[in-house]
């Protein structure tokens, strides 16, 4: 029956590890297909390293130099100094942790909550589905940023986790809706039905059959949620409606514009541009990597 012979692989454990190896080899292939994707991945990895290890290289309280307040970029300070005479680059690096941590939390919550709800709704159907989707629709209708502004008057978003939590709780609607739609359409696919017929558990069906099929989708949404979260929190801090205690790109933007006059004096331009560039670069990285998601998770595209 078969035409070509594929290298013999048998034995459960070795198959599983071989699969994993194959997966990563496939990912590598997908990434290599376009240099832009590699660039994106490098950028993202760079940001993660920056957020995880970056702050370790600096003291908790960045030293300021009262004699070098709001300086333009120089060899010593690549992006200049802030109105406290601190190195702007150091601020961007130490500030990345808050931004990325809260973005990660947001992405996690968005995806877990959105996916969970979407799966549940699409899988259960019936009354639950109707109710949940109505709620989701409502949630989607409430404009997010204005709601955040109003919420900011009550909650303080004290730390990145809280910030991430709130943004995540505001952001799951789109994912839930999309995942539900996907679930509904996948449900109709024979393999889900077959799994039910075989008596496989719901856990198996959801975890092993449904989720992997939606993985590119979820991964994309996760990355998009990261951009959204960065966008929203930096924006909130920028608007100055939140109190702040720590370094954060949004705080930098706010101070640059409203305290250092970065839009007026070129001296503070570095202070303004550094966080802006960081945001742009992060966005770019994500845009580039998102492009690869579909191919990474689809074995057919991965192995082509």
């Amino acid at each position: 029956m078969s035409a070509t012979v594929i290298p013999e692989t048998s034995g459960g454990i070795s198959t599983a590890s071989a699969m994993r190896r194959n997966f990563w080899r496939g990912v590598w292939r997908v990434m290599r297909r376009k240099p832009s994707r590699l660039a994106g991945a490098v950028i993202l990895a760079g940001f993660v390293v920056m957020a995880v290890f970056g702050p370790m290289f600096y003291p908790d309280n960045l030293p300021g130099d009262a004699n070098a307040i709001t300086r333009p970029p120089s060899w010593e300070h690549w992006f200049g100094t802030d109105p406290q005479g601190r190195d702007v680059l150091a601020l961007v690096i130490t500030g990345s942790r808050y931004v990325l941590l809260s973005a990660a939390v947001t992405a996690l919550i968005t995806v877990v909550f959105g996916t969970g709800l979407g799966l549940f709704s699409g899988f259960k159907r019936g009354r639950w589905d109707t109710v949940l989707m109505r709620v989701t629709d409502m949630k989607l209708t409430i404009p997010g940023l204005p709601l955040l502004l109003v919420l900011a008057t009550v909650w303080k978003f004290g730390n990145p986790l809280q910030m991430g939590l709130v943004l995540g709780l505001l952001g799951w609607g789109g994912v839930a809706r999309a995942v539900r739609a996907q679930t509904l359409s996948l449900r109709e696919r024979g393999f889900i039905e077959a799994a039910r017929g075989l008596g496989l558990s719901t856990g198996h069906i959801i975890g092993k059959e449904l989720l992997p099929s939606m993985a590119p989708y979820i991964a994309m949404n996760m990355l998009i949620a990261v951009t959204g979260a960065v966008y929203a929190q930096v924006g909130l801090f920028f608007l100055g409606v939140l109190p702040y205690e720590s370094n954060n790109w949004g705080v930098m933007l706010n101070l640059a514009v409203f305290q250092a006059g970065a839009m007026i004096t070129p001296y503070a331009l570095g202070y303004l541009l550094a966080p802006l560039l960081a945001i742009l670069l992060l966005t770019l990285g994500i845009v580039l990597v998102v492009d690869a998601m579909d191919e990474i998770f689809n074995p057919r595209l991965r192995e082509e």
Partner: protein
Amino acid sequence: MTVIARRLAGHLARGLVMILVVATISFFIVNNIPGDPMAARYEKLIEGGMSPEAAAQAVKVLYGFQPTGSLWQQYTDYMGGLLHLDLGVSVSRPGTPVLDVLGEAAKWTVLPVLVGTLLSFLVGVILGVFAAIRRTSKLGDALAISGSLLHGIPQYVLAMLLVVIFATLIPILPADGPVDILFEPGFNAGYIGSLAEHAVLPVVTYALSAYGGWVLAMKSSVVTVLGDDFILAAELRGMKRSIVFRYIARNAILPLFTILALSLGLLLGGAVFIEKIFNYPGLGLMLINGVNDRDYALMSGAFLLITGAVIVANIVADLFYSTIDPRVRSGEEAA
């Protein structure tokens, strides 16, 4: 028609429920806002050299406008007021109904949002078609990547860059409000010119930040339609290129109209950054001012109005969709 009427009724009912829910939420959020605006006012007056007694009296007068009574009663009053489109009285602007303040502000939001969005829609859709047709070429790639990037850049980043470039480094455009007061309002060249001049930066920001989305959406829509058999069928029937193009365009643009209406609604709320950065006195700025001034009524009013706009946009989008898409019109499309 009955299908549309039924949909409309459903939407209205749901919209109403939404408004009630949002109003309730904002009422209770607003009632939990910490911070004492009276103390702040008092402090300001004292700093201005008023005696403590005089300041206390002044604050009492000013905050006499605040609703009193039990929370529940305030709530019912508030909701009752909503029925008459009464959003309460602004604290920072005593005597001016919030609705008037917002009405004035809405003007300044709607205009640039509309122009900016339609502009970007037009350009984005046209370039999206190019990006789709030339998707294998460098041009197509460039269009798509520029689209993704612009789509990904936060609005405020764009706005700030524009201000730095066009208002600071090369000061050729104003970024300070909606119009020069020296021109007599009305239909005269000076006034309209000034309006236009002041609107350039906000409009361009709206347009640029939305443009990417349109390019991407239109591109993928066109690619989908191009793959549809009826396009090939039309070609094989020897239809004129212009007609085939029209077939593609109409089918591809259809789903975008829904997004257009929705984004118009959402933009009213998303205008916060642009209005803040360009000092454009629209709803978004009102909302921020409300938040900053602890002007409860203004804040929740602005929030409600923005939400209302989104709901209305939703309804419009759906109705629009159902009138132009025959499948929906006849009720074919399932829920």
